[in-house]
């Protein structure tokens, strides 16, 4: 049996390796390109996977000193933090209400909220563009702060609902017998127990904010106010020449660190997702 076992292992490892390479190659490529000299990059015969003409930090310097990249990161962080706060304030209580609201009404409401996730920004961005203009929020980061919770709240409500459902009702009932009102039982007993779920919501919301593109491109016009996701594609192109080195550096910096952070929370997120999807 050992030969067969060994063969199976090889197949198994190769399959996984292939997928891992397929998934991560663009990022590895981003990393390599970041340190390439421009004349190296623009020479189609130069060996791509190392630095035959030497490596350089010039691309990164340009990125940080001569573009608005740092400002875009700051913008994104700002929007991210505010949207996370808004989402927590609205989605966590809503998730709790849905988890404890008994009966079909609660269940249907839950599904209804989740289904709004299926009304995409690509339908909504047009009327929202007009609304934003009317509110004079055009080109302001506040327009994003206003609109982004529309896709973070539905999903986070559903996520939190799953988390809260997993906490037995007994605990609140014990708290109420001990003298707390239902609301106090929620804030003083249940919430502290749900830190894991809340952290997941925070990370997930932040990632969604970082990824958003359509609204960012629609509502923001001037370079100073872009988020990273929009700024990098639109701005690092001067005419027809793409500053690939800096571009790749920007992409790498804005993608990989948060992915590493996100990795720690994926299990929780998936648990919430599948529980909801299967049990309804």
């Amino acid at each position, binding site marked *: 049996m050992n030969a067969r076992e060994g063969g199976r292992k090889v197949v198994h490892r190769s*399959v*996984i390796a292939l*997928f*891992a390479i*397929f998934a*991560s190659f*663009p990022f590895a*490529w*981003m990393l390599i390109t970041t340190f390439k000299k421009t004349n190296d990059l623009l020479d*189609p015969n130069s060996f*791509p996977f190392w630095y035959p003409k030497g490596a350089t930090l010039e691309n990164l310097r340009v990125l940080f000193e001569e573009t608005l990249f740092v400002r875009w990161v700051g913008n994104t962080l700002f929007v991210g933090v505010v949207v996370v706060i808004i989402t927590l*304030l*609205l*989605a966590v*209580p*809503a998730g709790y*209400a*849905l988890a*404890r*609201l008994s009966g079909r009404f609660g269940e249907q409401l839950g*599904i209804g*909220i989740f*289904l709004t996730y*299926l*009304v*995409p920004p690509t*339908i*909504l961005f*047009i*009327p*929202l*563009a*007009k*609304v934003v203009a009317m509110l004079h929020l055009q080109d302001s980061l506040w327009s994003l702060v206003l*609109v982004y*919770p529309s896709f973070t*709240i539905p999903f986070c*409500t559903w996520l939190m609902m799953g988390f809260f459902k997993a906490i037995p009702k007994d605990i609140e009932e014990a708290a109420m017998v001990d003298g707390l*009102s239902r*609301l106090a039982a929620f804030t003083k007993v249940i919430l502290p127990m749900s830190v894991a779920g809340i952290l997941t919501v925070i990370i997930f919301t932040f*990632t969604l904010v970082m990824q958003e593109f359509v609204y960012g*491109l629609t509502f923001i016009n001037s370079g100073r106010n872009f988020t990273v996701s*929009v700024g*990098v*594609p639109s701005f690092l192109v001067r005419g027809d020449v793409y500053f690939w080195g800096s571009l790749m550096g*920007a*992409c790498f910096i*804005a*993608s*990989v660190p*948060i992915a590493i952070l*996100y*990795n720690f929370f*994926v299990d929780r997120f*998936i*648990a919430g997702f*599948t529980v909801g*999807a*299967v049990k*309804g």
Partner: protein
Amino acid sequence: MRVADSENALARFLIAPALIYIGAVIGVPFVLSLWFAVSDVTVSSTAGHFVGLSNFRLALEDPSFSRALRNTFLFAIASQLVVIVLATVLAVALQKDFRGKWVVRLLILLPWVAPVSLGSIGWLWILDSIYSVINYGMDHWLHMCGPEPGKTPCPVWLGQPALAMSSIIIVQVWRTLPLATVINLGGLTSIPQDIHDAAQIDGAGFFRTLFQITLPLVLPILLVAVLFGFVFAFTDMIVVWVLTRGGPYDMTQVLASLAFFKGIDGGDLAGASAIALFLFPVLAAAAILLLRLARRSEVV
């Protein structure tokens, strides 16, 4: 009983802010988009006039619209078909524990966690017409093509319509595969170990167990994952915008990107709304399907 004590009153109080927000930021604009589609609103106009269904008629007569419609379905269906197969294979492979699994998982998740636009730019560089690293490999290692005169020219990945469409589909697969895989993996691990043991004892080998026991049991979750992926692909504009801007010559436009160009670049909000609203029937159908699946999947 005070609100803080009554179960129902408290629940309504807690859920109200979220409901109000969603109503305001999703519900109202949605209704607005319906109004836009039957009016002649533009970016600069302050009020619109009712024009009936002429926007829809104009859209249907526009050849780039029908091409975009076709592309959108092609894009969504093709990418999700590939994803469903690949995600299943990868999820089965990831079930077993092995050394370095967390590194692999991190790598596999990267395409999905990274901002779409940035990942797409990475691909833009990989697929560049002159400097593509793929072309480098084909030239210098496989000797299949090259830029020098006398050699077959290497593919212009984003320049030829069929190639461009394929490239876009591949990037979409690349981007949605992680989510589908992880969802599948969740489904696979929710099958009790007992069932696999019983199948082993009953004499089923690897493939019989996979196709007759495991896959039928994960199917509901798999379908949910694919349905979501389909909806994301169907309504996506980012990959197209970054890779080709809809080119060459509008050949790779999808409904969402067409609506964007028309409305934001062109200022014709009414026409853009009409185009975008064609997305809605498919979305509604997908929503109904999802609900049906969620109801039916209490298998275990």
